[in-house]
């Protein structure tokens, strides 16, 4: 059990393009930290650098304040679960589990004791003599877990360990992993591109983008107080709508204007963004979660008319994509304030199973107590999230 620290770790390849830039990160002793981000953001590289499979260019990696970045992987005493499990095809389950122990030159007895123990813990007892290709996906995943758990390691590194499984199994194993991790309370770094996995698993979640850490916080915090439009767009399913809007003063109250539709600032919003009180007539980015939008009963005057582009009825809710007279921005853009989406599309979640015809006009209302505000660079205006 140990804490892992990254101090100003950078990685760039020979052509000098940086993959990781000046990263500071701590995985606390016993916690499960999920590292999430879109593919190519460098999260796997970061994990592999900790594992010792890739070299860092500058900075240092410490395990319990011991620098380890110059050690080869076999000397770091870390266990890793790979996306495709990387079970040794020529070994049985038992041999797979025993391999790391044999490398530690434990006695025969000790090896079989630990293998049996781990196999029981994971319910692999009756599979010990099988080869990996005779196992189902879920069983392979368990063996991979077992191989990591079988010895005493400083930490687990998991590289998208569930992404090769079907949806149902993924949910099931997600729970198991979380439970196991709690039970063993072993420091774990879990890399995924799936924000649902991140939100459900992590004690804390670190969001990464293009080699940089965006935010590291508990799942709730992340959802409630994303530090920038990237995190808001990435967390939540579907992600937050971010619109460019002028903050005006209407009837002495600051309000966001969306076409003809006006969104006056409410008390909770102004409490969260104290600066907005006096700053009017400025262009800002406005974040609205799809669940904060509702359908107006009829053609009400105080609503945002929109045309249905497509609808996904999911049973318990329906996701609606509509075009409206707004300026939607790309949340994953470098400069979101000036990167408008080609189609001014808004995502809306409506409870229940509803059918819409494409082209149909709907009228939207926004819960103006749940607004998120960002400057044109995309950074949150809230002093709470910084």
């Amino acid at each position, binding site marked *: 059990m140990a804490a892992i620290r990254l101090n100003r770790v950078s990685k760039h390849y020979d052509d000098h393009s940086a993959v990781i830039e000046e990263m500071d990160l701590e995985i606390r002793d016993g916690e499960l930290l999920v590292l999430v981000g879109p593919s190519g953001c460098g999260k796997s590289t970061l994990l592999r650098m900790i594992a*010792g499979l890739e*070299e860092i260019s500058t900075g240092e990696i410490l395990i319990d304040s011991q620098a380890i970045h*110059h050690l080869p992987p076999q000397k770091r005493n870390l266990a890793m679960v790979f996306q495709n499990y990387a079970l040794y095809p020529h070994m049985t389950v038992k041999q797979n589990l025993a391999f790391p122990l044999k490398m530690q030159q434990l006695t025969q007895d000790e090896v079989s004791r630990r293998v049996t123990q781990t196999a029981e813990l994971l319910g692999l007892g009756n599979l010990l003599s099988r080869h990996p290709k005779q196992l189902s996906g879920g069983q392979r995943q368990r063996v991979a877990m077992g191989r990591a758990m079988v010895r005493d390691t400083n930490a687990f590194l998991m590289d998208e360990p569930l992404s090769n499984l079907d949806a149902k199994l993924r949910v099931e194993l997600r729970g198991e992993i979380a439970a196991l991790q709690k039970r063993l309370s072993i420091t774990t770094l879990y890399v995924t591109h799936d924000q649902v996995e991140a939100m459900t698993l992590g004690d804390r979640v670190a969001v990464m983008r293009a080699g940089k850490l965006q935010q590291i916080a508990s799942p709730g915090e992340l959802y409630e107080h994303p530090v920038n439009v990237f995190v808001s767009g990435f967390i939540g399913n579907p992600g937050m709508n971010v619109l460019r809007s002028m903050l005006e003063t209407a009837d002495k109250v600051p309000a966001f204007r969306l076409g003809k539709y006006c969104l006056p600032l409410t008390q909770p919003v102004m409490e969260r963004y104290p600066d907005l009180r006096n700053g009017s007539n400025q262009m800002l980015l406005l974040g609205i979660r799809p669940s904060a939008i509702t359908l107006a009963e009829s053609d009400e005057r105080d609503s945002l008319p929109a045309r249905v582009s497509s609808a996904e009825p999911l049973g318990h809710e329906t996701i609606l994509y509509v075009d409206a007279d707004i300026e939607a921005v790309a949340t994953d853009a470098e400069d979101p304030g000036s990167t408008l989406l080609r189609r001014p599309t808004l995502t809306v979640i409506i409870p229940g199973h509803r059918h819409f015809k494409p082209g149909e006009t709907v009228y939207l209302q926004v819960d103006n107590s749940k607004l998120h505000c960002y400057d044109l660079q995309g950074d949150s205006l809230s002093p709470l999230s910084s």
Partner: protein
Amino acid sequence: MSPPARLDDHTPVVLLIAGPALIGLLVFVLVPFLFALLTAFTNLRLGSPLPLEFVGLKQFTRILSDPTFVRAMGNNFLFALIIVPLQTALALGLALLLNQGLRGTVIYRTLFFMPVVFPMSLVAVVWILIYAPGPNGMMNSLLDLLSFGQWQPRDFLRDPALALPAIMLLSIWQGTGFQMVILLAGLQAIPQELHEAAALDGAGHWQRFLHVTLPQLRNPLTFVMLITTILAFRLFDQVQIMTRGGPDNATTTVMYEMVETVFTRQQVARASAMTVIFFLLVLGVTWLQRHLVRETREVE
């Protein structure tokens, strides 16, 4: 112990694990070649008491104006020119026949592949008997049978017109199985759906062969032809055993001349010059083949 300069710099361990092979390649391939390149410009002889002299390009001009050596190169080219298409076509034909999923395929494959495990020197010796002159000779009587008695017995290995073809024939016998197996594997790697799609598109057997099989088989075909070409250029065993380059230089080859020159005549420098020429020939062939293959890739 100080940490290594780079974590993923494995130079020390590589010295240990790749060292033997690298040293082997250096000492037994690169150094000898450089040696040949140097000595080709001298008068070096094995065991001569005369002092070593640099003679410039003399060895090269002599070799290239030596009718025997020119004939040797010509024979190599002729051998390649005939054997490569012929053997490849035969191997492809056999592979196609065997790829139909007929019953007994394994037995046929075994028979066609069997000569591959015969050392060439053994094949050469045994085929001397097959080519025995006179009406009792096996090849002679076979041809007599096939021509309904029209064939006049010939002494194949002593006949300037027949000796090289005779050597070609046994080379094909020995080598076709090797190529066939490679092409067969290539055929089996072609997804059946391609044939089915082509068939649905209305392509007949011949069109499917032309437009599906051949393009899909390009890599193994290229490889097989390259290997055969190089085998044609290193032709030696059969010649040394069966004809010793004769009759009238009809079967002499670059390799045969090279070995004669250094081994029987101790003319190291001259043989080194031949080595250099041989290198250039092989490199030229490989380059040509790669070039041609790249061309077809660009066209596609």
